[in-house]
């Protein structure tokens, strides 16, 4: 017995590491490693257009949609203001940092303006969340949509801070260690790093005690309250965490386009984030990225495709709307759900084919 106990620490060191690695389901699937490697060597495969317009944009939209996925999937709160939080962060980068609108921008260096924007946007999202948790269920959508729409109209009519409907242009992007971080390849790695960080943060939180309690709150708030959990505090904390992720996405977005205007925070854009998350699937953190990829591909190539089929190229939103309706009608879990159903179906067919000789 004593021998065994003595031997325990020695053998368990690598075992512990392995167990910790295996606790992340991502690390024991070859497909995941393949995707990771492809994403890492992407700059050597794709040129500037694909790298930024397709992949970096996918990662940015996916990050914002990830924050919605976290709230909706683990917290049961469908918030339509995640893009508004991201847009708020973007505006704050423009207001505190440097831009062409010198009468608005305060001209702080990026390493001061960015954390400031992150803090303010997180506070904004938390306050909005605190407002939204005053009511429950379906009302969340209404209140968060009202917040998002109000912010859009506010940016449109406010000139002193938000620059009215022209917005703020030519926003400075970070430049240090001799690298222009907005040039294609460094920027791609920045977005990849941030997206990966957010992805693993959501994965981690979903299995941490807080995430488990949040899922409990989603499934049965009254029971969790009876068990002594503060239901509203968990919900507001979830909003705060999601707001932080959305703010990161918003900062990347403003660095990408180098301008921000009310059009970027319009109601349509808020709804696009919901579409991305729902189409990808809101039960797993990978869903929003898949959804964002589909969305970006469609947005970029729908015009050419529609014209090729002899249709009006401007009907991109019709296509998006119909696709979204189809997903909502036939798969409550987006593309992931379809994929899983197809695999289960294939497995069932295999089983039947393997074990079903007797049936003829």
């Amino acid at each position, binding site marked *: 017995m004593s021998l065994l106990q003595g031997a325990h620490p020695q053998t368990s060191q690598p075992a512990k590491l392995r167990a910790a690695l295996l606790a992340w389901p991502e690390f024991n699937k070859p497909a995941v490693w393949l995707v990771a490697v492809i994403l890492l060597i992407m700059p050597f495969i794709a040129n500037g257009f694909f790298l930024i317009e397709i992949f970096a944009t996918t990662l940015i939209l996916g990050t914002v949609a990830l924050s919605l996925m976290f709230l909706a999937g683990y917290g049961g709160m469908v918030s339509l203001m995640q893009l508004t939080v991201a847009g708020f962060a973007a505006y704050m980068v423009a207001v505190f940092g440097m831009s062409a609108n010198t009468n608005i921008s305060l001209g702080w260096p990026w390493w001061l303006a960015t954390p400031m924007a992150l803090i303010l946007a997180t506070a904004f999202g938390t306050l909005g969340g605190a407002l939204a948790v005053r009511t429950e269920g379906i009302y969340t959508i209404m209140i968060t949509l009202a917040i998002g*729409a109000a912010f859009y109209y506010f940016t449109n*009519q406010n000139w002193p801070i938000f620059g009215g409907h022209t917005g703020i242009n030519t926003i400075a992007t970070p430049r240090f260690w001799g690298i222009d971080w907005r040039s294609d390849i460094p920027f791609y790695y920045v977005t990849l790093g941030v997206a990966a960080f957010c992805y693993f943060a959501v994965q981690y939180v979903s299995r941490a005690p807080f995430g488990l309690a949040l899922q409990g709150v989603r499934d049965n708030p009254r029971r969790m309250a009876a068990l002594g959990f503060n239901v509203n505090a968990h919900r507001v904390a979830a909003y705060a965490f999601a707001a932080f992720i959305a703010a990161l996405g918003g900062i990347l977005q403003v660095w990408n386009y180098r301008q921000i205007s009310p059009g970027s925070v319009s*109601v349509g854009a808020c709804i696009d984030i919901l579409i991305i998350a729902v189409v990808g699937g809101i039960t797993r953190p990978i869903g929003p990225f898949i959804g964002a990829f589909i969305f970006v591909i469609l947005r970029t190539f729908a015009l050419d495709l529609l014209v090729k089929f002899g249709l009006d190229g401007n009907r991109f939103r019709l296509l998006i*709307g*119909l696709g979204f*309706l189809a997903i909502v009608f036939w798969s409550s879990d987006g593309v992931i759900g379809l994929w899983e159903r197809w695999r289960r179906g294939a497995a069932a067919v295999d089983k039947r084919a393997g074990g079903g000789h007797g049936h003829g």
Partner: protein
Amino acid sequence: MIRFIERHPAWALILLIAVAVLLWLILAVWPPGLEEAIGRKRVFLNALFNGITLGSLYFLVASGFTLIFGLMRNVNLAHGSLYLFGGYIGYAISAWTGSWILGFIIAFFGVALVGIVLQIAVFRRMEGQDLRQTMVTIGLSIVFADLMLWAFGGDFYQIQTPSWLVGPIELPLVTAIKSSGEAVYLRYPLVRLVILVAAIVIGIAMWLALNRTRVGMMVRAGVDDRDMLAATGVPIQLVFVAVFALGAGLAGIAGVVGGTFQSLSPGEDTRFLLASLVVVIVGGMGSIPGAALGAVIIGLAEQLGSVYIPTYAIVVTFLIMVLVLALRPQGLLARR
């Protein structure tokens, strides 16, 4: 009324003082000091009347929204699209036949028909799944918006006001006294007043229909407990279809009204969706009097805000919503 005063004496007093101040502001000739402080009385009265008439338009949109939500628990985020669709129908009909009234009638029935089709073909299939229904309405609003953009383009349309309603009339409200001692009266567009009266008539008719008729009784019972109503043998699906048709039709009428005293263009659907959301959040979900109160409050806040604090007007509307959510999350006049 008396019970309210007994229960909340402080609030009753504040309300009474507010009403008295408002009446004085409307009826009295403003002393020069006040005019210097907050501008001319004519501007204030115009903003006030614009606010109330805008509120009547908001009421027409939001009452349908709140009715559908109250009975079917369906947050119809395509309601703004129904509004815009009604407006376009009204424009097409009135431009074609030259009759404003005919535009109203056809817009009501046309949009009500869309509502019936939606309820039967789409929402009945997913009854009780709140979130999924809402997602479907979002998808529908995108599809409708794009179809309407396709059909009508991005131009602004304005519905022609009929000749018998064109022009202002003089109201017996003194805005200023000329140096010669002559009183100047407020002149206000007749069409807006007619629409205000029409909205009040529709509101009262709806209240009567809900509170004094058998169908209204069914609807109210359905708002309280849908399952129990179905269990008593009421053809609940028929009631649902009727209510959805009425709510959609009201949005269609509102579209014609909005097209007459504002304009129709892509994007108006979102604006009126936001307005109905805020109105029912403030007034209380599923309550018709709540929608009326909320609509007047929001209309006034928007118009007075845009006159007195132009770049922050939307913040006032928003702050009202925040205040209501903080103090009375179920809305001002909701029972639950």
